[in-house]
């Protein structure tokens, strides 16, 4: 959106995340002020801006250091993978160390900073520099007298830099109540970036804020950033929002019977899944199944482990028949193991962001989320988890978080802070019955799908998580040996029933046979009777005919009346 409008031309910093916050980089051809306390990364940010400019954007740069000697500087940034010597040799960069006499110089009258101008101009011209860094120009105030002149001269310097069209970074130490000790922010008014290095509960976190950016929209929050072997990466949190497109595709959980519990197809792609439960209920195993299944499909998985080392996880998962080694070797599975206490929450978030950006996984596992957020207050934790969930959704990662609940407490209550963010929540619990602990699993919620409401018992076998059939007894779901007993009983009962059914079947058959035999017999009898009856009828008919004939014959012989009856009556 920002790009559609005509905005200031910008010089991309090439620093992960910073360009997103600033909408493309620092104002091109203008000075930018970077301020912050000691050790907050000002010099490094400025240096990375130059190095990226020289190597990625074809803009050579001049680094004018007022504090560090060029040699020290080269060594310091070499640890971040910047080879300044090479850049200088290739005429991509000029390193100029301004040596300031210790103590103030004797001032004998009016002066100006033409020496500095000439020196800078010479450096810019020698390589055609487009970017300039003045690293803590404020130190001039400690060695040059008469701050009135200095101020005027600095003002002239910034104007001069603008006229020359170079994109400049001026660093300044944070002062009390002001952004910089000498109030440089008054002169450099185009873009001001504030860096901060805070320590909370002995955990440090670095933050960056765009204080102002004239003529451009920019993110206004404090953004955590990270300095590691690849330089600086900033986590652009505001770019996150509820704009993700929900996929209706489903991906299997890695446990076939769990898939059927989730409407037959598993999780939604890009959804967030929480697996919570007390200690030893098999949360990590479920996570490993999911990871394994994803790798099997050829997807990439990043596994953030906060409690166990990768090799420990792999060893443990081997015991339930999941071989994660192979996926690591094939480059499909990446472990990121960190102690939660190694950095502040935001640092972890930034690290996760960076890992996701570089590895681009489809599936992300955070194991366990609870230790990741341990130590923060509830609000803090919630903010972080919201960011984390958003971040993963933005990157279309299907994420599975495990979460440890303390036994004794209400299972649902402990995660109240994050419950509303989760799409699918699987609860693992121990079921203690008859002197046994067994593992049960149920789906507390699963947005957008018809899911099973049953509590299922599952076993951790040498070939993974196995859901058992459900046996419901008078007191709920039966587990462990109670289930086995019930299973046996049901089997016995089934056998009895089967025999009964068989017996009845046989009896029925027998009846049918008998009945059918009877019917045949009756039919035969009837047939015989029928024939006999017909014979009798025939005989009787023949007899009748004969009788009539005889009577006629007799009448003829007696020459009687043709009507026998009349004749009979007459005779009487």
């Amino acid at each position, binding site marked *: 959106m920002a790009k559609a409008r005509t905005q200031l031309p910008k010089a991309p910093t090439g620093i992960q995340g910073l360009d997103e916050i600033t909408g493309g980089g620092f104002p091109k051809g203008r000075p930018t002020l970077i301020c912050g306390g000691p050790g907050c990364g000002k010099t490094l940010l400025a240096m990375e801006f130059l190095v990226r400019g020289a190597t990625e954007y074809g803009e050579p740069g001049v680094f004018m250091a007022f504090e560090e000697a060029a040699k020290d500087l080269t060594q310091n940034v070499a640890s971040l993978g910047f080879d300044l010597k090479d850049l200088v040799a290739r005429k991509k960069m000029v390193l*100029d160390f*301004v*040596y*300031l*006499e210790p103590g103030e*110089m*004797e*001032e*004998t*009258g*009016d*002066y*100006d*900073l*033409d*020496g*500095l*101008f*000439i*020196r800078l*101009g*010479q*450096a810019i011209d020698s390589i055609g520099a487009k970017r300039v860094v003045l690293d803590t120009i404020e130190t*001039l105030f400690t060695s*040059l*007298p008469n701050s009135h002149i200095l101020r005027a001269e600095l003002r002239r310097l910034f104007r001069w830099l603008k006229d020359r069209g170079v994109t400049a970074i001026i660093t300044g130490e944070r002062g009390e109540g002001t952004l910089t000790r000498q109030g440089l922010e008054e002169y450099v008014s185009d873009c001001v970036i504030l860096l901060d290095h805070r320590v909370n509960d002995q955990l440090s976190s670095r933050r960056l804020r765009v204080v102002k950016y004239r003529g451009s929209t920019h993110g206004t929050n404090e953004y955590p950033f990270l300095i590691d072997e690849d330089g600086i990466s900033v986590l652009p949190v505001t770019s996150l929002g509820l704009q993700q497109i929900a996929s209706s595709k489903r991906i299997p959980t890695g446990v076939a019977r769990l898939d059927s519990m989730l409407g037959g197809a598993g999780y939604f792609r890009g959804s967030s899944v929480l697996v919570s439960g007390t200690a030893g209920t098999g949360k990590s195993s479920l996570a490993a199944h999911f990871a394994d299944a994803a790798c099997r499909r050829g997807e990439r998985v990043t596994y953030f482990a906060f409690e166990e080392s990768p090799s420990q996880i792999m060893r443990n998962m081997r015991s339930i028949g999941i071989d994660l080694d192979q996926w690591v070797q094939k480059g499909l599975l990446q472990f990121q193991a960190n102690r939660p206490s190694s950095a502040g929450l935001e640092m972890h978030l930034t690290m996760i962001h960076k890992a996701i950006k570089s590895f681009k996984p489809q599936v992300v596992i955070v194991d366990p989320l609870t230790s990741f957020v341990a130590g923060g207050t509830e609000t803090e934790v919630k903010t972080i988890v919201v960011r984390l969930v958003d971040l993963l959704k933005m990157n279309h990662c299907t994420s599975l978080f495990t979460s440890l609940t303390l036994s004794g407490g209400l299972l649902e209550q402990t995660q109240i802070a994050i419950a509303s963010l989760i799409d699918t929540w699987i609860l693992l619990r121990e079921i203690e019955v008859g002197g046994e602990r067994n593992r049960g699993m149920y789906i507390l919620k699963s947005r957008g799908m018809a899911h099973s409401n049953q509590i299922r018992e599952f076993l951790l076998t040498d070939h993974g998580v196995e859901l058992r059939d459900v046996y419901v007894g008078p007191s709920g779901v039966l587990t462990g040996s109670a289930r086995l007993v019930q299973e046996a009983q049901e089997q016995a009962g089934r056998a009895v029933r089967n025999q009964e059914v068989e017996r009845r079947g046989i009896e029925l058959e027998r009846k049918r046979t008998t009945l059918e035999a009877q019917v045949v017999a009756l039919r035969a009898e009837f047939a015989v009777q029928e024939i006999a009856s017909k014979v009798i009828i025939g005989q009787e008919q023949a007899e009748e005919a004969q009788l009539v004939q005889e009577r006629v014959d007799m009448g003829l012989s007696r020459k009687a009346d043709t009507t026998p009856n009349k004749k009979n009556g007459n005779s009487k």
Partner: protein
Amino acid sequence: MKTKSTKSAKPARPKAQPPTGAKVAKQAKSDSIILRLYVAGQTPRSILALANLKKICEEHLAGRYKIQVIDLLEDPKLARGDQILAIPTLVRELPVPVRKIIGDLSNTERVLIGLDLLPRK
């Protein structure tokens, strides 16, 4: 040090340094004070500085000094090589230690203090 100074003085001479300066330099002895004045072009301030410098030298260091005027506009690289920021800057090359004072040299007392010719307060 010496070769450098002669080299660097050359380009500056035709413009920034009037003939008197060359004469003065010739008069200098081996134990003399070598002073270098860095300017950037013929600005009123640099002309004033040079005039002030000559006056002070004649008054306090007659015959013992040598002045080189270096115009950074003509040899910009020297700004970096000699670590010059402020203009005008006066550098006392010899005797060691090197002293730097800045400004147009209109405050004579400070110039003398800066050149170790007067004790610091």
